[in-house]
């Protein structure tokens, strides 16, 4: 036989609670208890409201560029819910919901986008890495963090989030290859939201699924409905178990949609049709979860109203706290560079202040 098939692959897709309200009780059994589901819904609502507020803050000049998370809340939240609190969460910048569930304060995220590095001064107790702006680079850090756990014989694993665009970056492929070949306990979660700013998924990946990119590295892969909290939880649980017990990576493609612009500096109307956005608005993870809760008699409009008041109070208080933090001392610029400040940097710090003072004095003397 000169030619024979040496590999055939299949990719499974998991959907538990679909956009029409159909719920797969067998797959969803025991995954998320009712009380938790209510809390998870509230967490998504809170994150969504923060997005609205952040947008207005940016438009009114009270915050810098901000990337809205709208539409993508389910994936990172499900991961944070399913993982142990001491598993690494290695995210990019559209995973607020998961980070808040983990305990990262809302004002930290706000502070970061308000142009203050102290927003990224994550407490080490949260096992969450700082917001990663360059695309795709954080997956290698996840592999390294997971490697350190394995090296020390700890049970801690690493779960990393990235977009479909990031799977075009070389670092994604290096991270997948390292994790697979060195047996590192990593859960790769690709939030396929179809758009990398204006670049459509078809320019990132010509294969029928992003999920199969994991197959190339010998990882088991799943595609899930990324707006389905249950399906995301199911997949992360599956991958986390494999990471924890076998010290091996897995790849999950969460199919979702970026309902907002890429950031407040972007205008998505330039490159995509409103009709497409409208389709995805019907698949919104919040809407779906709320309908499911209502169906189960766990939610109603008066609960919704009461929650919206709570959420507004919570978010407004976080904004107030973030805005009340004054700019860091200028010396921080230098003092945060090294454990021990090199002499030539100390000289720059000290003379910069002298020069500033000198020019202020000169300006005053000239009557400005």
């Amino acid at each position: 036989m000169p030619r024979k098939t040496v590999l055939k692959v299949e990719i499974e897709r998991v959907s538990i609670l679909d956009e029409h309200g159909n719920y797969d009780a067998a797959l969803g059994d025991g995954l998320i208890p009712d009380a938790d589901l209510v809390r998870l819904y509230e967490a998504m609502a809170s994150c969504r409201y923060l997005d609205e507020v952040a947008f207005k803050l940016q438009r009114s000049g009270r915050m810098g560029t901000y990337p809205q998370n709208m539409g993508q809340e389910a994936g990172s939240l499900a991961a944070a819910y399913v993982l142990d609190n001491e598993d690494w969460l290695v995210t990019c910048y559209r995973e607020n919901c998961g980070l808040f569930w983990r305990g990262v304060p809302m004002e930290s995220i706000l502070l970061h986008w308000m142009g203050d590095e102290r927003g990224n001064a994550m407490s080490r107790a949260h096992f969450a890495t700082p917001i990663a702006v360059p695309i795709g680079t954080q997956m290698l850090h996840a592999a390294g963090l997971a490697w350190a756990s394995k090296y020390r014989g700890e049970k801690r694993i690493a779960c990393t989030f990235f977009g479909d665009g990031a799977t075009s970056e070389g670092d994604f492929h290096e991270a997948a290859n390292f994790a697979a070949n060195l047996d590192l306990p990593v859960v790769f979660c690709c939030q396929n939201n179809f758009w990398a700013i204006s670049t459509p998924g078809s320019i990132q990946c010509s294969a029928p699924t992003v999920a199969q990119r994991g197959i190339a590295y010998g990882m088991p892969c799943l595609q899930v409905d990324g707006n389905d909290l249950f399906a995301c939880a199911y997949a992360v649980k599956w991958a986390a178990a494999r990471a924890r017990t076998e010290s091996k990576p897995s790849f999950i493609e969460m199919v979702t949609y970026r309902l907002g612009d890429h950031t407040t500096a972007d205008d998505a109307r330039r490159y995509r049709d409103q009709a497409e956005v409208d389709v995805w608005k019907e698949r919104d993870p919040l809407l779906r979860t709320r309908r499911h809760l209502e169906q189960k008699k766990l939610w109603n409009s008066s609960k919704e109203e009461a929650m919206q008041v709570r959420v507004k109070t919570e978010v407004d208080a976080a904004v107030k706290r973030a805005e009340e933090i004054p700019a860091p001392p200028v010396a921080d610029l230098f003092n945060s560079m090294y454990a021990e400040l090199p002499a030539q940097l100390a000289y720059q710090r000290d003379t910069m202040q002298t020069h500033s003072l000198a020019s202020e004095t000169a300006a005053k003397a000239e009557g400005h």
Partner: protein
Amino acid sequence: MANLNLVQAINLALIQEMEKDDRVILLGEDIGLNGGVFRVTDGLQKRFGERRVVDTPLAESGIIGTSIGLAMAGLRPVPEIQFDGFLGPAYDQICSHAARMRTRTRGAYTVPLTIRVPVGGGIHAPELHSDSPEAIYSHTPGLKVVMPSSPYDAKGLLVSAIRDPDPVIFFEPKRVYRAFREEVPEDEYTIPIGKARVVCEGTELTLISWGASVIQCMESVEKSSKSIELIDLRTIYPLDLDTIEASVKKTGRCVVVHEAPFTCGVGAEIAAQVMERCFLHLEAPVQRVTGFDTIMPYYKLELNYLPDAARIAGAIDDAAAY
């Protein structure tokens, strides 16, 4: 005391730090079973096992990116990038993350990482195996850049680099790897990062260099009739400006020698610093003897590119006669 070359001195430093500190792990291409292409890590995988001396996939960004994760988790990774010219693929991880993590997180996360890189020309190597990119990384805030020129210094500086709480790029001059041996104590010692060495004292001219060029400078000093003070920087960033200043104020003349290209080389920074600090003491403009603003040539012309004793002597004469 043992009589060691630079390769053996680094090997010994790695052994001693690994024995002392379980957080130190080595990773890179061909460093395990093969002992590295220059044999710097020879025997270490056999000694410490595959858990601590790890052969990685062939991917420089992957090596540095995973090292950053290892370091953020509290380990002390010592990755090897096989050749200077292969730092390119790792540039993003080094400059966008290793260098920035401390300040980005205001110290919540740090990257205590030592990146070992064979550097420079003069060994008849192929393209991209002979470059001197120290200025690029010295221009990147958040990194420290070290380049020893002797086995003794290499051991003491590598120990300091591994223990340093910030990322260090540790350049190992290939031309010196097996050029000579010297007495290297078995006992633990460190050489502080950021401290230059006065190789020989003199009164008429200050000659400043680092890495393999120090050897050519020593030759020039021996042949010269003038009283020359030779400074081996040992660390490129942070610069030991006090040692430079004290010397140039004494001699009034300064020549800087490096393999890397002329424009925006570290020599330019030293010349500017000398002008700012020693202007009224200078008897002549600072001279630079460097590689050219050309691509590092293939090996048939590499000796025409690299500063040699004759070019250095010419610059010394020019500065002295000014």
